[in-house]
């Protein structure tokens, strides 16, 4: 089948055809006959979402630097394209060479959020690859996955052949070498998977069996082959300053979600917010040097012509040399009008100064994330922001000329009461009052309050906690809607039903694989797109498989319950997490260990313990 020829016919008929046409600047094309491993990097969402993802871009260019390897991209086709493909019998194909996915050696999925799982299944289906690992033959591709979701791989353990846990830059090359080696000997997937399971950071679920307790909880997950680790340790890059980072990156034609050059300034975070999984699993903190970053930025702009650079990290203001970095970058790009954007910037007096500098070049709204409405609850979640800090920064921002402020909160946090919700509304009104105080009137002011619902995540102090029931989520949203009636305040909330499903899958176990398959059969896909999401189909899938989703989302766990994700070792001690949970219950904060003593999170024990030396564990 000549896919190119059929595309000629169908692309003019679908929305946003550049999602499928490829040919962007800096794309990599290779001769398929001259390589040894053909890898499809698959992102289970549409092009403009997937292309905005840094990890995918790093791996794409890193893999293509290898002479033996050809890495191509594939995204989930939007529903109109999917219909066309099914109608014409076109299998899912790669963007670069338009090769059907089933002809690749390896397919690597990037799992960024649970609600993309149905798309993983749909993409396999569209590619004609068996959904379950056990059904795949030697001629089928090896299906691997990475990304933050794989810290709990179990809900996909029967679908994905092999998970890469943690930062993949090194492990993926080891896997490629192994693949070539195996191809030259037996070529069987069994041999490859057996040997791959020996690579640190690689989890091959087929070689681990799950045992359950009578109450349905997991008793243990044990390796079924000799020589395999009981827990798979995550991989991480020790020397971030010298790790590969692409500069000649693809520049999409169409407008993607984050259409800019991304400069990763550091990985990890030591603030220790108790709800935040990223803050735990990406430890230790490792920074790139200013010199390195400036060079990367320069090369990137030269190779892409982007009009904006965005600094990426979990918390931009924590970069130790932020002021210097921004000074150099603004000087460097003043003439060519390349703007800087600083997402996840904690706004305080110091960063406000920086924000003003950036405004010389570009103006955008300011974002604050107090996460909870009262000091008590902020202490519970260890979000070290006080109302005073916040209002001072807001005043500074208004004085500097901003008039758009976004406030992010979470509802349903452990111990939350209606008093805390009231606090959200009060804070928003105080922001409005502050504007009136600074400007004399409220003309031009726009305050947006957004709430998401707390989802308890593996490897956080709240992994033992229950999510509040769905009805209660909706009740609390209603309450806020009423309290936030103000012409200058708009209120957005995240669909509670999605948060509920996220809570199911983020702490799910292996039994959920069947639910996923069932949901897919019912047509679930693009669940994070509200116009396509069907909650009732999901509920039908649960009930037909005979699984109660509330068991996963709304059940508080006992202190010594074994968790399905504990087959993975992210380097964070369970003891530390439990300590933090108990402190949370007492609304006792834990200061950032960068400025305080070490709190013994355990990451030091992980191979080498490079990051936190000089600190004494408590």
């Amino acid at each position, binding site marked *: 089948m000549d896919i190119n020829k059929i595309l000629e016919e169908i692309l003019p008929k679908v929305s946003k055809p550049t999602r499928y046409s490829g*040919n962007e600047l800096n794309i990599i094309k290779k001769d398929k006959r001259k390589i040894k491993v053909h890898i499809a990097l698959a992102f289970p969402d549409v092009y403009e979402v997937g292309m905005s993802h840094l990890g995918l871009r790093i791996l794409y260019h890193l893999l293509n630097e290898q002479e033996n390897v050809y890495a191509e991209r594939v995204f989930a086709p939007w529903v109109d394209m999917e219909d066309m493909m099914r109608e014409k019998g076109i299998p899912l194909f790669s963007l670069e060479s338009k090769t059907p996915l089933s002809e690749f050696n390896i397919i690597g999925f990037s799992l960024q959020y649970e609600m993309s799982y149905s798309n993983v299944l749909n993409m396999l289906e569209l590619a004609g690859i068996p959904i379950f690992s056990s059904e795949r033959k030697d001629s089928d591709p090896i299906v691997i996955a990475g990304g933050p979701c794989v810290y709990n791989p179990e809900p996909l353990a029967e679908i994905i052949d092999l998970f890469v846990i943690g930062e993949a830059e090194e492990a993926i090359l080891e896997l490629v070498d192994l693949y070539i080696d195996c191809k030259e000997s037996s070529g069987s997937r069994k041999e490859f998977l057996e040997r791959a399971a020996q690579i640190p950071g690689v989890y091959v679920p087929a070689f681990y069996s799950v045992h359950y307790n009578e109450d349905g909880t997991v008793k243990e997950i044990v390796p079924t082959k000799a020589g395999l680790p009981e827990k798979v340790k995550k991989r991480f890059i020790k020397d971030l300053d010298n790790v590969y980072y692409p500069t000649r990156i693809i*520049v999409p034609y169409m407008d993607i979600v984050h259409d800019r050059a991304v400069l990763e300034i550091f990985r990890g975070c030591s603030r220790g917010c108790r709800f935040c999984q990223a803050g735990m699993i990406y430890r230790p903190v490792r920074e790139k040097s200013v010199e390195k970053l400036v060079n990367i930025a320069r090369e990137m702009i030269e190779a892409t*012509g982007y009009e904006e650079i965005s600094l990426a990290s979990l918390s931009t203001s924590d970069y130790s040399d932020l002021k210097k970095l921004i000074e150099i970058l603004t000087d460097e790009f003043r003439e060519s009008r390349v703007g800087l954007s600083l997402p996840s910037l904690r706004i305080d007096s110091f960063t406000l100064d920086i924000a003003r500098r950036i405004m010389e070049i570009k103006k955008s709204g300011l974002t604050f994330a107090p996460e909870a409405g009262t000091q008590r609850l902020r202490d519970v979640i260890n979000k070290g922001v006080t109302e005073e800090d916040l209002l001072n920064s807001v005043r500074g921002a208004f004085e500097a000329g901003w008039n758009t402020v976004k406030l992010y909160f979470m509802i349903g946090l452990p111990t939350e009461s209606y008093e805390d919700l009231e606090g959200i509304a009060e804070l928003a009104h105080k922001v409005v009052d502050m504007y009136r105080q600074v400007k004399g009137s409220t003309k031009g002011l726009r305050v947006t309050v957004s709430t998401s619902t707390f989802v308890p995540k593996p490897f956080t102090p709240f992994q033992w906690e229950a999510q509040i029931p769905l009805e209660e989520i909706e009740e609390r949203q209603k309450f806020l809607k009423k309290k936030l009636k103000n012409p200058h305040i708009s209120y957005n909330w995240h669909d509670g039903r999605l948060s509920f499903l996220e809570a199911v899958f983020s702490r799910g176990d292996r039994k959920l694989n069947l639910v996923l398959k069932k949901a897919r059969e019912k047509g679930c896909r693009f669940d994070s797109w509200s116009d396509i999401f069907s909650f009732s189909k999901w509920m039908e899938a649960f009930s037909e498989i005979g699984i109660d989703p509330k068991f996963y989302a709304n059940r508080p766990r006992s202190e010594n319950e074994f968790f399905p994700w504990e087959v993975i070792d992210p380097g964070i001690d369970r003891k530390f997490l439990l300590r933090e949970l108990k402190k949370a219950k007492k609304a006792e904060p834990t200061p950032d260990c960068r400025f305080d003593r070490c709190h013994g999170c355990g990451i030091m024990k992980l191979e080498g313990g490079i990051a936190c030396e000089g600190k004494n564990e408590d």
Partner: protein
Amino acid sequence: MRVKVRMRIRKKEEAKYISHLDLMRALERAMRRAKLPLKFTEGFNPRPKLTFTPAIPVGITSDVEYMDVEFTKQLSMDEIFSRLNSVLPPGISLVKVDTAEGKIPLSAVNRALYTVVVDIGNATREVLEKAIEKLLSRSEINIEKKSKGKVKFVNIAPWIYDIKIGQIEDGKIELKMELAAGQQGSVTPPAVVNALQEYIPSLSVRRINRDEIFLFDNGKRIDPI
């Protein structure tokens, strides 16, 4: 200093699905890669000063996408050409660079020539000739047009100046269309093809290219470059 330069750009097969907006963005980025001394607008959100000829629908290649751009320094046309052409994305290339001074403004163009390759299935050439003849003789061809969510009917008949049958190659027929393309009115080949399909339902389009665009005034043709 303010130097206004006009460029003629070609949008080829590899880039035919990109929209007008995508093309503008791609060119702006290419000029930054080429380190051309772009002049920017003032204010919080500085943009380079660019103007273009009328947009064409997605899926059409073009030999005549014109862009005017302002620079802050005088550079030779050759230098601009070579610096920019070497960094353009696949599917986009420069045809010519010239000063914009003394030329018609790009907003003045009102006519374009297209090559439209069609497959007429089992219809004959005679049938096609008849159909074109009929179409050209009509004073009213109303088509639906959506603008700002509302559907309205527009009469495209006065904007179809000519359709000629050109070469025939393995069953495909090349049509040369001369159509209005400008602020006073415009129609693009897909709409004309739709109208032809009323007479020949088996007709389908294989390829469309915009070949030329110009100002036609008092029987005289003036090209942007």
